[in-house]
Each structure stands twice: as structure tokens, then as C-alpha cells.
């Protein structure tokens, strides 16, 4: 049993999904999904502990050994990302119970939870697998589930957003598929380790370079790297609350993980950054993302829109750290990947609470929130502070590392960039906070969200504070992930 845990992690939600869809009532589906998500979290956590204790875990699917069969390979990096995905899922699912009840028709709820489980499956699968084609499959599983889930949004614009995402996502996946196809043609293998070992021999070919470009653009769409982010704001904005809480914390993070894996572990820094100078492109795009998306966030009239654009900007931060390709930069990048999941999850969850009670999330809905929903508003404030990067919150730690990395690399303009973007974050968060607390509202009845939503929300908020104060755990994890990446191709 113990050695099958890596596959169980992926299979469990996958098996639960059809069961879920067949359950007659949404409530039961929710209970099942929640139970599964918790089980997944437990498994993921135990795997992470095992990875740290025993080193990399390799699991051959179906008993076929690595180069031929599909290998699931867990190291310090993806075990961490798995835990992250599982943890967010374990928080979002309990949270989703009430908000799904409110936002989605009763007869469609089992389907919703089934799709959510599939989404989890896809994400966990992407992270776990050591086979690039398998990645494609899981990528499509998660993407398809995402398109469907977004389409559950109450607003009819959710449909259009889902459609647009579908078209763009399919193009992205296809580009990725072409890329790995070319790589396969060159090297004859799909196993990541193998690929990494054989690539240097053919690195000088145009085919290899084009393949890398295709893979990077395909992943760029998935991770919403500026300017390939255009599908994201509306998708996050109009998706059901639970989904907009889940996606930014996980889906883009997994895509970023994948990019890191490709660049550092498969292509190798020397090739992707040294020869192809992709780091320059990434740096430029990251900077543009941070500025442009923050500026856009400042002008949004809908809080979920603000948060969505902020997510685009935060992807910029993460890519920025990675593009520096230094140990501190990567640590910063991974830390921010982790911390941003915490903060964005909490922020969108708070908006879920608002959606439940107020029915919309535009700025007018926020007016007087501090009195109407004090706990929700307070959670938003704390998570918002973390987003800005205020000391004593998780956001500060990752930004601090990022700044250190920039300074160490001698890129002081980047320091200014980070600070300016943080200042803009301050402005867009402050707009919401000021309205919540300092704008009078006629109806000042107190109607707080139910406890089932508040508890997961505050769990994430407390995690934001915890990882802002006691950084030993998160930094150690990020550093072990960093070491995996810095070690480069075998």
C-alpha cells in the first residue's frame, strides 16, 4: 500500500469523480468530494514527509520500468506543489459547500463536484508524472474540467469566458503537444529524465529550439504569463466562487511548476537561458506583467477583477525570481508560488463570502463591509496586506527574497520594479479596504458568512500570518525545491 501512494493520490479523486457525478444529491457529492480532498491532502503530506526523509520517490506505472513505462517521480519540488494543491483543495471544498448550494442549481451540483475532483486529479497528475506526454493528458484533464467549472458561473458571461479559455487553452495544449512531439522525434523518449539526458546531443538543432519555444508558449498560456493572460481575468471573475478561489491558487501554480521543471530540469539552464536567452524574455514579460496588470487591477470596478489582474501580476513576480536563475531567486520564486496561493486563495474566498451575502462583488458591494461582515472583511485585510507584502505576513517573506535575489544579481532596477508594483498592490487593496471600512452604508445589518466558509477562509489567513512569522518550514521547503532545480538535468 505504502509504495502505491503516489498513484493513489491521482487515482483516488479520479475514481471518486464518476461516483460523485452519479450521486443523486449535491450534498452527498460535496461530502464525498470533501472526504476525498482530505484524504488526498493526507497522502500528499505523507509523501512530502517521505521525500524529505528518504529522497526522491520513483513509481513505475503498471510495473513498467522508467524509460519505457510511465514514471511517477516525486522529489522535493513536486511533492511540495502537490501538498499545496491538496491543501488548497482541502480548504476550498469545505468552503464550497455553502457557496455552491447558493450559486449552482441543485441538480447540477454532483456534476460540479465531479468536475472539481477531475480538476484535482489533473493538477496532481501533472505534478506527479515524470512523462511529458502524460503531462499533456493531465493538462487536458484539468483544463477540460476547468472550462466546465467556469461555465458553472451564474453570470452568462461565464460561458463566454469559458469558451474563450477553451479555445485559447486548446491552442496552448496543442502547441505543447507539437513541442513534445518534436522533442520525441529528436530523442525518441518522453521520459523527463531520459529527455534531459539526450537533449544536449541535439541541442544545436533548430528543431530542438523550436520545440522549446512551442512548449514555453503553450505553458505560458496555461500559466497566464503576460501577454498570454487575456483569458484569465474574465474566467476568474465569472467563475463560481469556489472555483475562483481554487484556480488562481493551484492551476497557474501547477503550470508554473511545469515551466520550472522544463527549463531547469529538462532543457537545462545553460541551454534555455544561456543559449536561447529565454531568461531575458521572461524578465521582460514578468516586468511588464507586474506593471501592466497592477495598473489594470487599480482600475477595475469589480473586486474579483482586481484580484484576477493581481494574479497576473503575481505570476510576473514568480517568473521574475525564476528568470534570475540564482539559488535565492528560485527560492523566492517557489516561496512566492506557495505564499501567493495562500493569499489569493484567502482573498477569493473572502469574495465568495461576499458573493453569498451580497450577491455581487463589485466595489459598491464592498461598501460598509467592515460592519456588515466583520470577519470576512478582516480576513480580506490581512490577506490583502500579505498581497502587498507587509512585514509579518507571508507576502513579505517572498518579496523580501525576491528583492535580495535582484540585489544579489546586481539588478537594482528590478528592486524598484518590485517596490513600485507593491505600491500599486497597496493602492488596489487599499481601495477595497477603504470602502469596506470608511465608506458609510445605509444597510448596516450584520450578516456574517456561515462558519463553514469562515473557518477555511481563516485557516488560509492564519497560514498567511504563520508563514510570515515562522518562516523555517516554508523556506526550508522552498530551498529543497530550489536544490532540485539547481541540480539541473541529470
Amino acid at each position: 500500500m505504502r509504495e502505491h501512494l503516489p498513484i493513489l493520490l491521482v487515482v483516488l479523486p479520479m475514481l471518486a469523480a464518476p461516483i460523485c457525478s452519479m450521486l443523486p444529491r449535491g450534498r452527498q457529492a460535496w461530502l464525498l468530494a470533501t472526504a476525498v480532498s482530505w484524504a488526498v491532502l493526507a497522502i500528499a503530506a505523507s509523501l512530502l514527509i517521505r521525500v524529505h526523509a528518504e529522497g526522491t520517490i520513483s513509481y513505475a506505472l503498471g510495473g513498467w520500468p522508467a524509460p519505457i513505462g510511465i514514471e511517477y517521480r516525486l522529489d522535493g519540488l513536486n511533492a511540495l506543489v502537490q501538498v499545496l494543491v491538496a491543501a488548497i483543495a482541502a480548504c476550498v471544498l469545505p468552503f464550497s459547500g455553502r457557496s455552491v448550494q447558493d450559486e449552482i442549481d441543485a441538480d447540477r451540483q454532483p456534476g460540479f463536484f465531479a468536475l472539481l475532483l477531475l480538476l484535482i486529479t489533473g493538477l496532481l497528475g501533472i505534478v506527479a508524472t515524470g512523462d511529458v506526454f502524460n503531462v499533456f493528458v493531465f493538462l487536458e484533464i484539468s483544463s477540460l474540467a476547468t472550462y466546465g467549472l467556469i461555465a458553472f458561473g451564474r453570470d452568462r458571461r461565464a460561458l463566454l469566458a469559458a469558451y474563450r479559455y477553451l479555445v485559447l487553452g486548446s491552442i496552448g495544449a496543442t502547441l505543447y503537444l507539437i513541442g513534445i512531439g518534436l522533442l520525441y522525434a529528436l530523442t525518441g523518449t518522453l521520459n523527463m529524465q531520459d529527455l534531459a539526458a539526450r537533449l544536449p546531443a541535439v541541442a544545436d538543432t533548430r528543431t530542438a529550439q523550436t520545440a522549446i519555444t512551442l512548449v514555453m508558449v503553450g505553458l505560458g498560456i496555461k500559466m497566464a504569463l503576460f501577454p498570454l493572460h487575456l483569458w484569465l481575468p474574465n474566467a476568474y471573475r465569472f467563475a463560481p466562487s469556489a472555483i475562483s478561489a481554487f484556480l488562481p491558487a493551484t492551476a497557474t501554480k501547477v503550470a508554473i511548476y511545469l515551466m520550472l521543471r522544463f527549463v531547469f530540469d529538462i532543457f537545462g539552464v545553460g541551454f534555455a537561458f544561456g543559449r536561447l536567452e529565454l531568461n531575458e524574455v521572461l524578465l521582460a514579460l514578468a516586468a511588464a506583467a507586474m506593471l501592466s496588470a497592477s495598473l489594470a487591477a487599480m482600475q477595475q470596478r469589480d473586486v474579483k477583477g482586481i484580484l484576477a489582474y493581481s494574479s497576473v501580476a503575481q505570476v510576473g513576480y514568480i517568473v521574475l525570481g525564476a528568470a534570475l536563475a540564482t539559488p535565492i531567486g528560485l527560492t523566492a520564486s517557489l516561496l512566492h508560488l506557495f505564499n501567493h496561493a495562500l493569499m489569493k486563495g484567502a482573498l477569493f474566498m473572502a469574495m465568495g463570502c461576499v458573493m453569498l451575502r451580497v450577491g455581487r462583488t463589485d466595489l459598491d458591494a464592498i461598501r460598509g463591509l467592515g460592519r456588515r461582515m466583520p470577519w470576512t472583511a478582516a480576513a480580506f485585510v490581512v490577506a490583502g496586506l500579505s498581497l502587498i507584502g507587509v512585514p509579518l505576513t507571508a507576502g513579505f517573506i517572498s518579496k523580501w527574497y525576491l528583492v535580495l535575489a535582484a540585489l544579489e544579481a546586481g539588478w537594482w532596477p528590478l528592486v524598484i520594479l518590485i517596490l513600485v508594483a507593491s505600491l500599486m498592490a497597496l493602492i488596489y487593496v487599499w481601495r477595497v479596504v477603504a470602502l469596506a471600512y470608511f465608506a458609510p452604508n445605509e444597510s448596516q445589518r450584520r450578516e456574517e458568512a456561515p462558519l463553514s466558509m469562515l473557518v477555511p477562509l481563516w485557516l488560509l489567513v492564519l497560514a498567511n500570518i504563520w508563514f510570515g512569522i515562522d518562516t523555517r518550514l516554508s523556506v526550508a521547503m522552498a530551498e529543497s525545491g530550489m536544490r532540485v532545480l539547481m541540480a539541473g538535468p541529470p
Partner: protein
Amino acid sequence: MTDLVWPPALLMLIGALLISVLRGRWQALLILATPLCTLWAIWQLGDGVLQSAPFLGYSLELVEADRVRRLFATIFALMAFAGGLYALRQASWYELSAAYAYAGGAIGVCFAGDLISFFLFWELMALCSTLVIWSAGGDAARRAGLRYAALHLLGGVLLKLGIVGLILHSGSIDLRPLVLAGWDSWLILLGILINAAAPPLAAWISDAYPEASPSGSVFLSAFTTKAAVLALILMFPGTQLLIVVGLVMIFYGIIYALLENDMRRILAYSIVNQVGFMLVGIGIGTEMALNGAAAHAFAHIIYKGLLFMTAGAVLMQTGKRRCSELGGLYQSMPLTTICAIVGALAISSFPFTSGFISKSMIAQGAADQHLALVWYLLTAASAGVFLHAGIKFPWFVFFQKDSGMRPAEPPWNMRAAMLLMAFACIAIGCAPSALYALLPYPVAYVPYTAGHVITQLQLLLFAGLAFFVMLPWMKRTLTISLDADWLYRVLVPALLHAWLRLWRHIDDAIDGALGRLSTLWQRLVVAPHRPSGWIVASWTTGAMALGVLLALALLIWRHLI
């Protein structure tokens, strides 16, 4: 710290405080008793440092007494008493309170044994005298008081700079004779000279004193300038520069007083002139000259107080202040007239008045040192003094043409005060030895020699003759003569306004530039990021796909080139 002593300044300050609290009979009693108690305390003080206190990390010598300090303190206390008597019924309580605190400051300066406490009392004087000026009420007093305060605070800061520098550079806070060398001592001298009304910074005196109330100007005339004289005696005896400054002051005072029409302004200029005599004495610096300066200060306070009292009485009874509007008052105010004449004679050094026995000591000092030019100028100035103060003031105010006014004599307390002062003028003049006994150095000077008396009388006679010969030219019209106060009455405000205007322009320019920049920023950068801007507005699927394709093409092209 020695045995318990009553710091005289403290007594005076307590009195000032109580005056502001008590009312009626008790207040009146206090007004009269406070200076007398202070006087008593002054004469209880032995020589040397009597009281010290820690301050700013130094040990202050709050009370240090010697002969010259005691002399000045005595006359200050006496003047406070006379002024208090004069103001007893007429002045407001806050004017009296301020005036007594002012006197307290002056007495404090007298006994200050170190530079820091000297400065503290100096500032106290500046503040309280401002209050005295303001007590007159009205807009003219407000503005004059403001200018007065600003100038004196400025002087105070200069003095402070000098003192701090001196302490820092020499390591000692002792109040001692200084040598004019380096910034510090020059700044100290400058600060003191501002209070001594040395030109070109003398204009405050003719600006502010005439705007005070009748009783206020009596107080004002006594303390500030004479405290400065004392300070100069203590710190700059024998500084040659002071002779020059003094001579300039003497003639400045005469010329402006002759040109002046306002009776109290004439007296104010006359203070400059008289202080000039004292400065000359200090500048000569011999024992004789210093004695003369101290004695002259003593005498001057009395007769100038008397003159201001009579001018104040006239002002109070008639409400007029210009010579050209007054005249013929001797008919209804005989006592005031007589007192004014006594004061005028005293200031003109008429034999058997106080001025005679003091001023001549300074001249003698000059003669002893063989400073011939100085002696001649002093003598000539004596004539000038007689012209402007000795004759011009009483003649235009009390005699001349009849203005038709028949004001009554002032109330009893004012009359009593005037009589007291007049008596003092003559008493000192007749029995100089009493004053001489108080002087800092032993006096071996006999004023009443036949030659001296005759010379002085001749001088005065010819000066008087000249006055009446030139009378048509002496009649003043309604003019205000231009003085150095133009600097801060016109130039400084003008500069200030210019600065403010410039500031506003700069401000506007910055605002404008910022505004234009922000518009540009809004249009070029912010607007596209609005929900409707092209960067953000919902892109169609096709446009997004095209974008992806372009990005891809760009990247591949970049690698393949």
C-alpha cells in the same frame, strides 16, 4: 550657594505676578511696596556671587553684586516705584504687571553674574517691554510692538549666538570684560548695541516708545537702553569703538529730535543722544569716564522719566501728541510745566541739576585722556541737547502760541510722581556727593568749579539765543522723518511679499507641471488599463489567438535568426 538672599529680581517678578492677581486697594499697595522691598533687597546684597543654580549643565550665578550693579539696580527699582506711582490709577493691571516684570528683568540683568542668566533676563525684558507697548491698545501700538519685538528677538538671537559661541570657545560662562576679537564678541556687542539703540538700529526706539501708553513710555524710557549701558560697562569697558558709536548716537539723536514734531518722539531721540554720551564714557574706559557713564545713566533715568511723565500727562489730558497742535498749556497745567522745565534743565546739564554733575564727568574723562576732538564734540553736543530737549520740548508744548486748550492738571498720583522726580533731579544736582558715593570707583571730581559753571552757562545761553533766532525754522510741520526704520517698515515687508509671491509662482509652476505630467500619464498609461481601455477590454477569442500566434512567431523568429 551662600546664605539665603532675596534675589531682588525675584521679588520684583513675584510682585508683578501678584499684581495680575490682586485687585483694588491691595493691588495699589503692592504696586508701591514691591519696588521698595526690592530696593531694600538690593541694599542687603553684599559683594560677590550670592546665589547660583544649575542650568544647561552649567552653574549659573544668578545674583552677583558689586557697586556698579547695585547702582543700576537701585535706579531701576526707584524708577519702578516712580513709574508705579505715576501709573497707579491710570494704567491697566496687565500693563503694570508687564512693566514690573520688565523692571524685574532689568534688575535681573544688573545682578546676572554669568552670560546665561544675563541672557535669560535680557529676553525677559524684551518680552515684557513688548507687552507694555501693546498695552496701549490700538493698531499703531500693535504694529509698533510687533516690530519692536521682532527686532529685539533678533537682537536677542544675535546675542545668544555670541554668548553660546563665547562659552563654547572659551569654556567659561563668566560675565567679564571682553576683547573684541572673533565672531562671538562682535555678535555680543551687536546684540547689546541693538538694545542700546545705536544707529542704524536705533529706529525702534522712536518707533515704539511713542506708541506706548503715557505710563508705558515712562517705564520703557528707563530700562532697556540703560541695561544695555550697564552691559557695556561690564563687558566692553574701554572699547574705542564705543566712542565713535557714542558720538554718532549723540548727533543722530540731536538731528532727528530737531526734525521731529511728535513730543514723545523728540524725547525718544533724546534717549539715543543721551545714551551716546554714556557710550562715549564707556569707550574712554577710565575710572573717571566709567563713573561718568554710570552717574549719567543714573541721572538720565530720572530726568528722562520726568520728561516722559510730563509728556504723558499732556497726552493724557489733551489727547494730542504733536508739537504743532500743542502750546500754551502753562496756563492750566503750571505744575506740569514746572516739572517739564526742571527735567529740561537737567537734561541740558544746567548747574544745580543732576545732568550737570554727571555729564561733565564724561567730558572730564575725555579731557583727562587728551581726547580733544571728543571733548569738543561733547561740548558742542551739549548745546544741541539744550536746543532739542531743553528748550524745544517745553517751549512748543507749554508755551509758544496758545493752542486754546485748557486742560486740567493730571491726577494726584501723577503729580506726586512728577514732583518726586523733579525733586530728585535738583537734589542730586545740589548734593552730588550722595550719588558719587554710590559710583563704582572713588570719585575725586568736583563739579562746581566757577569755570565749569560759567562755561556751561555760557554755552546754554548761546544755544538758547540760537534757538529763538532760528525759531521760524524750528516750527515743525506734520512730517514724519525718514529713518533707518524704513528698512524694516518698508523694505523687509516688501522683500517678504516678494518672496511669498515668488513662492506662490514656484508652487503654481510645480503644480502646473505636475498636472500636465499626470494628464499625460493618465492618457498614455492609465487610460489603456481602464476596464474599457484597449489593454484590458474583453478581447475576442480571435484576437487572443492571433496574439498567441504572434508571440510564438516572434519567439521562433528570434531563435532562428
